[in-house]
């Protein structure tokens, strides 16, 4: 066990943090939100130049061959900066489905474009009725020659409004919540039969509703083996959770630092409010919640490539529980300790709070994953099975 960063990892961390410090201040963020896409294309190109957009991919596809720790480092920095760009949608979700599930033809066609920053992806998976159940897919894929015809409606497609291509899940067989019978299809976002409605989310990011009405996908647009997509979807969703855990830790750490600074500078009754023991203890409790969350983000990074899917699921579920609970506590207390100031749009801490709240609602909230963890028997098994 070795928790120190390698030289490469330290370099990555420093460079992404420097880039964000230089280019992504709070005012810049407000400006970027007002751009047509709701984020900065220019910054996206800088990410590409820094190699961030090729982070998890093989070198032969223009990537840098990073693993979960590298993703963690970058996502934590994004969390601190409250980044707006479609990194999760394009690199983690879209890129993850491609690199793990696509054949070499599709990979070599698409991944280099992701890495160069010229292809944006989104994963159109959730549906109105599915809540947090990854297997609950009603959208249908009907066989049509060498390809398929897709019909259905997808919801809450993260950064689906700006994506060049959508990766759409659809059901080839089975009942609505069956794990068997799902397929994945890569379709141009402006293809016939695809319509989108983009909107802003509470955290200032973007999403889209997507309707598929007789949308045709050709044989070359099938991702992996039709009907067998569920394990791939579950794996990539867990990778997204691990990434979001790191992002949440970055946001919480910044939240905590801002709060401690505020306690040191804000005066009431002639003294800094940080001299009140109750607020000191609250800040200590926030630190504990943050450190527990950081530990679980590490654990998620460590376990996200665990080969046994049940062990992986247990670990990632546990991480999402901790992130959700710590995030809620840290965010709420930061607002409380800032008083009215924390409630205003002009001040950064409330935006962290909203992003951490949104992260809890992405890919299953704390309660959902706690129930799943309990169903899977928890984390601690009988002694010898450890």
């Amino acid at each position, binding site marked *: 066990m070795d928790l120190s960063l390698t030289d490469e990892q330290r370099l990555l961390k420093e460079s992404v943090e420097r880039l964000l410090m230089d280019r992504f201040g709070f005012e810049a963020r407000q400006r970027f939100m007002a751009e047509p896409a709701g984020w900065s294309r220019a910054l996206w190109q800088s990410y590409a130049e820094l190699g961030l957009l090729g982070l998890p991919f093989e070198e032969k596809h223009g990537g840098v061959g990073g693993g979960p720790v590298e993703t963690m480092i970058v996502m934590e920095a994004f969390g601190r900066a409250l980044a707006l760009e479609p990194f999760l949608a394009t690199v983690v979700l879209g890129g993850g489905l491609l690199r793990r599930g696509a054949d070499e033809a599709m990979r070599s066609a698409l991944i280099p474009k992701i890495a160069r920053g010229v292809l944006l992806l989104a994963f159109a998976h959730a549906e109105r009725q599915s*809540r947090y159940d990854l297997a609950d897919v009603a959208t249908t894929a009907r066989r049509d020659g060498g390809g398929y015809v897709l019909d259905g409606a997808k919801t*809450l497609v993260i950064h689906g409004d700006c994506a060049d291509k959508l990766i759409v899940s659809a059901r080839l067989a089975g009942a609505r919540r069956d794990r068997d019978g799902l397929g994945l299809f890569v379709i141009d976002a402006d293809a016939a039969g695809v319509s989108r409605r983009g909107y*802003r989310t*509470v955290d200032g990011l973007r999403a889209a509703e997507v309707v598929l009405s007789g949308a045709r996908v050709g044989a070359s647009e099938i991702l992996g083996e039709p009907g067998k997509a569920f394990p791939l979807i579950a794996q990539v969703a867990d990778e997204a959770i691990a990434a979001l855990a790191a992002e949440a830790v970055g946001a919480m750490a910044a939240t905590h630092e801002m709060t401690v600074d505020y306690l040191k500078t804000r005066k009431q009754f*002639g003294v800094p409010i940080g001299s009140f023991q109750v607020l000191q203890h609250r800040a200590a409790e926030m630190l504990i919640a943050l450190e527990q969350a950081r530990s679980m983000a590490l654990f998620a990074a460590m376990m996200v490539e665990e080969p046994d899917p049940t062990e992986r699921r247990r670990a990632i579920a546990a991480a999402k529980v901790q992130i959700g609970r710590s995030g809620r506590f840290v965010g709420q207390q930061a607002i409380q300790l800032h008083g009215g100031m924390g*409630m*205003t*749009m002009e001040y950064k801490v409330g935006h962290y709070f909203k992003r951490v709240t949104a992260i809890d609602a992405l890919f299953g909230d704390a309660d959902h994953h706690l129930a799943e963890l309990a169903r899977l028997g928890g984390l601690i098994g009988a002694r010898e099975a450890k």
Partner: protein
Amino acid sequence: MDLRFTPDEIAFRDEVRAFMRDALPAPIRRKMVEARRLEKDDIVTWQRILNARGWAVPHWPVAWGGTGWSPVKQYIFHEELQQAPAPDPLPFGVNMVGPVIIAFGSEAQKRRHLPRIANLDDWWCQGFSEPGAGSDLASLKTTARRDGDSYVVNGQKTWTTTAQYADWIFCLVRADPAAKKQQGISFLLIDMKTPGITVRPIQTIDGGREVNEVFFDDVRVPVENRVGEENRGWDYAKFLLGNERTGIARIGTSKARIRRLKEIAALERAGDKPLIEDERFRTKIAAVEVELKALEMTQLRVVAAARERNEPDPASSILKIKGSEIQQAVSELLLEAIGPYALPEETHDDADRWNEPPIGPEWAGPLAPHYFNWRKVSIYGGSNEIQKNIIAKAILGL
């Protein structure tokens, strides 16, 4: 000891309930049920309906429009109003400045302001907090320099709720720069149309614009608009702050919100069944209901004790703390109930979006903003930390 309502109290409750059912306009009720923001007109319309019925200011002296109800009946009225759910009357007039004018104001002030408060002809706002004076209110800095028959007011107030609608503002100011902290404070009534007043909205994280900064730049206020004596303003402010007893726990509101939560949980599906049938979620709701029922009984005990005491009851700090904790817990459960549909932002500002259908279920839109906005209830009116200080000192003697 008889813990139940008397037949007379039950008859009164039924009368109030029937009135709320019949008199509350449906669009206002719908906004209240759905936890949507109200417009100024909604508040005004409802207040005038109450005033027409003679129920605008139940707790005021009968001479000024009060009803003469017992504390229990006042409680019942407020509880039924919140459960309707109807809007609470704008507190700055009827609960704050009104009682101060009644207790300390001149006859001219009473005649001029009280009827217009009861009918919401004048919209009032509160000028207490300043950027440097939050929990430590007495450190406020806004000055009122005497110049003939006027004060000249300079300074800044903040967190001023609905100042953008306001006709009048009541302010704490320093008329005596030499006096220390509490001693130098006076209480002024200021017409918002007076030259030199600027209102700047503060947008909050839920997207709302209900609070503001208010700037005073050589604002001339006639001396006759001072309430009571110069330099006695701190006493009037304490009277005002301690006065806000009834309904501070918002029990009726929480009941209405829990009803809404149960409705939504019956509509949302988790897996193969309605969310309300998920044993864990149902249990979470029940746990809040227990705390709320206990708080309702605590409130009734405070109301009953109010017969016997005439000063502010420090037990109202318990009502404030627990009431805000429950309101926030319900706002969290509402957020959890809608699951991923916490995400889409409801953009009330964009007129062109009003005609589009909402993203996800129609009940979801207001609930994330409600959750964000409701963080305020443990902050304003004396933060929960301040309330615990009060309990420790005034009740426990620590």
